[in-house]
């Protein structure tokens, strides 16, 4: 379950998230109790599956790889039955550092944590936890910039990969074969996303039955910060994500417009930062002069600029529609007149 925030990035806030795999054909037992402090790699739920893997709810090898790759204690592979058995057991790690505040009736564990949050425009896939790692191509570029040694890079199994740019079908296939559990990127074309998910995206995000339909998808959770197309990831999002490389995060890709659910990545703050008890930072969403905004539709979708004028009267657009509007100064110096409903704060 995700709780939409309506904002792309929240650097720090106290949140509660239910750790739950999704779907209904799962029997779960909490391994923790309310009031208990948990670590991100600590198993908090024991899940038993009835039925076969084609239900989309069976134990995934990526998750096993993630559990075995975790550096700290407390994370253990469960007593997995032999392959092909009808009943399977999995222990889900918390994904978050914090305090257990509730156990839900269906057996989910609600954890309260001081976290940084990135909300996506669109995504797919159920909730997963993993270590955040930069896609090797970008990691190499980063190392080259810092003049560090060049070493061949592999995609770490069980990780949540960060791609600070657009994705394509080939990259997604590569990610799946590498055994990662999730990918966070800026954007992807509709064609590539539907090809990868093998589903009708409109049907997917318009479904009344989001949990069940997510469980039937390819086992890779996706979050796209900018949505469909070939948009770059805003610098402040990239900075936040690269800053948390190596941390464990909780990623949900569920996008259900009817239920108001959007994908999100929750990264518990390191102990030192969390102990500071900093006040929650809520970015200002008010449109005002000088505000940095992104155009969310029309021919200039994706353009980023600064508001430099509010028009007193509604403006007439090429369609003939009259609407209240602002003038934007884009990063390349050009100006653009856009309806106020077509822009959103992005910094």
């Amino acid at each position, binding site marked *: 379950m995700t709780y939409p925030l309506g904002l792309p990035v929240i650097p720090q806030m106290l949140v509660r998230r239910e750790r739950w795999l999704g779907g209904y054909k799962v029997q779960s037992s909490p391994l923790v109790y309310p009031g208990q402090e948990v670590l991100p790699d600590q198993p908090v739920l024991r899940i038993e599956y009835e039925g076969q893997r084609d239900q989309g709810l069976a134990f995934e090898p990526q998750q096993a790889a993630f559990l075995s790759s975790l550096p700290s204690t407390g994370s253990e592979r469960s007593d997995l039955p032999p392959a092909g058995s009808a009943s399977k057991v999995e222990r889900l790690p918390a994904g978050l550092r914090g305090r257990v505040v509730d156990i839900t009736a*269906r057996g989910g564990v609600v954890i309260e944590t001081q976290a940084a949050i990135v909300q996506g425009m669109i995504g797919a896939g159920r909730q997963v936890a993993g270590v955040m790692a930069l896609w090797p191509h970008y990691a190499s570029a980063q190392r080259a910039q810092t003049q560090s040694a060049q070493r061949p890079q592999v995609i770490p199994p069980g990780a949540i990969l960060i791609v600070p740019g657009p994705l394509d079908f080939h990259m997604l296939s590569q990610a799946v074969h590498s055994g990662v559990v999730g990918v966070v990127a800026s954007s992807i074309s509709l064609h590539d996303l539907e090809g990868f998910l093998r589903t009708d995206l409109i049907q997917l995000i318009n479904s009344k039955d989001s949990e069940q339909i997510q469980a039937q998808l390819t086992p890779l959770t996706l979050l796209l910060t900018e949505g469909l197309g070939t948009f770059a990831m805003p610098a402040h999002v990239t900075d936040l994500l690269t800053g948390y490389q190596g941390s464990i995060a909780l990623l949900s890709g569920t996008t259900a417009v009817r239920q108001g659910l959007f994908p999100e990545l929750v990264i518990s703050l390191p102990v030192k930062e969390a102990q500071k008890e900093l006040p929650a930072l809520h970015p200002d969403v008010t449109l005002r002069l000088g505000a940095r905004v992104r155009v969310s539709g*029309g021919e200039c979708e994706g353009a980023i600029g600064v508001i430099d004028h509010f028009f007193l009267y509604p403006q007439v657009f090429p369609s003939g529609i009259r609407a209240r509007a602002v003038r934007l100064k884009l990063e390349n110096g050009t100006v653009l007149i856009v309806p106020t409903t077509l822009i959103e704060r992005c910094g």
Partner: protein
Amino acid sequence: MSIYPYPEGGQGKLQQQNPAAASSLLVADCGSVFTKVSLFGLVEGQYRLMARGEAPTTIAPPQDDITTGVIQAINVIEFITGRRFVEDGRIISPERANGHGVDMFIATLSAGGPLRLVVLGAVSNSLQTLAEQAIFGLYAEMDTIAAPSYQATLAKTPEQVVAGQPATVGNNGVWSQDRIALEWERQINRFLELQPHAALIVGMAEPPTGPLPLQDACQLLVKAAHGLNGQNGASMAAPGTSNEQCSVLYAGAPQYVEAVRRMINGAMDVTRVDPLSPQSLSSIGTALGTMHERNVINRLPGYERLQSWSGSTPIATATSLSSLVRFLAQHYAMNVTAIDVGGTTTTVMLAGERGEFIPVVNSGIGVGPGMAEILQQVGWQRIARWLPFTIAEDEIRQFVLNHMLHPHTIPTDSRGLQISQAFAREAIILTVDAMKKYTPQWPGTDLVLATGGILAHSPKYGQAAMMLLDALQPRGVTSLVLDRTQLITQLGAVASVAPVPAVQVNENDAVTHRIGTCVIPFGGLQPGKLAVRVGIEYSNGRQMNVDVMAGSIEVVPLRVNEQALLTLFPAPTVDVGLGPGERARAAEEIDGGLVGLIIDARGRPLVLPANEAERQARLLQWAQALGA
């Protein structure tokens, strides 16, 4: 004409403000995508619309408070008028001597989505149909889960079909225990997936199933109540704790009502109504309307604050619209059809001069995020058929996805506008089709009253006229009126508290954009041949005859404030309302409009050319004729 009962919207229990003394009113309509606020004030002794403001609705985080959007829309009015209406996050009331503040605040709501209703028990096809009729005028969507015992029993008698289920016949038509157990599991999962706000239990406990389906329904609810609490992230519910998310309406066999209460054992609230039948539709609709208010509207974030500002309890926008439409039908003694196309809901209401009323609130269908549902129901080709250019499926799908993810998007280029208007046509068609399903004898309409953003914001009046003619396909003679102010959905609510301002604003500002009178010949129109000769005698004595060929649209100049006498000479096989070939002469002068006198001789039903190039040429030709 069939007459469907309609639940009366409850009006405000709070009457703190004195409507007689109100010289200024703020009226807010919180839609699923946009919140519109209007300021009414006294101008030379008459209530008039002074200013309007619009802002995105803010029920989702981070604002998470419906009043934030209302205040933002009021801020626009403050900007326009130079007056202040909000102070310290509250509406300034009453109006002050310096002009700041207002005497009254009224709100209507369609935000928050529909009431999700699940029908349980012995759900036969006929009961399902009745349940659908009961929710006709409500923001509601319905699913059916027939009891396993009912399905299992009827599986033995394959001629009977259970609502929402394919005919299921196993070995000798008998369900095994495993099959029943599987069905139980499926039903509980389905119930949890649907996350309903209300459950309607139906069935008269008749043979061969007896009361078993009612018992199944109760067991399902008890089990599901536990899961619903869990999914909401609440603490584990203690046994006997009522689930606040879902309420139960019992419309089954009366003799089992206490047994049902005992079985549900407080897991959910149970309200009893008369058993579901054509006679009880009104009371069941009213009860479901109350549940919508309690389980959806009252839970909107910021609702309590909004209510505290208001002189009356905020009511559903559809309820408000229904009051106005019925008032207009009776006041002007004519059949009135109201159309409201919103972002996620399309409403069509028909009120007759003799008190008939047929409302359809089509939840999930609209020109914002509701485009997805339209596309899924009709397919991309039916959208593309209204466009005078070639378009690929991918472009339409991308367009829909963009509107789902960015519901506040407005079309800034003409291509986007035309795609949106194509969706509006299909939204109206789907809603009218839903209405015709239960009202096969679709009555003629004298006046079409259109509102909603896509219609109200049409850059040209001809575009609005074209959408209405294409989608509604009226016949005979009718008039089109466009509510550019988007006020008609709110005036019913205003009238219940302050009738004088409602009537005056309606006449002065809301229904003032008269597009024109339309003559729509139907019957045996032969392409390329004369359909109707129109004789016009203007009030200044000038006379004119216009020959209109089948397959075309003509506009005869007849501007606002102009009147003319009309005589229609249809071709022998063509009907203008009095029978094939029957000449018709208007007893009274007809009024002009912003477009003029429209003669739509394209035929009914409207058939678009199959050839793409020809279809596009025709669409352009018709649009040019209307100045669209």
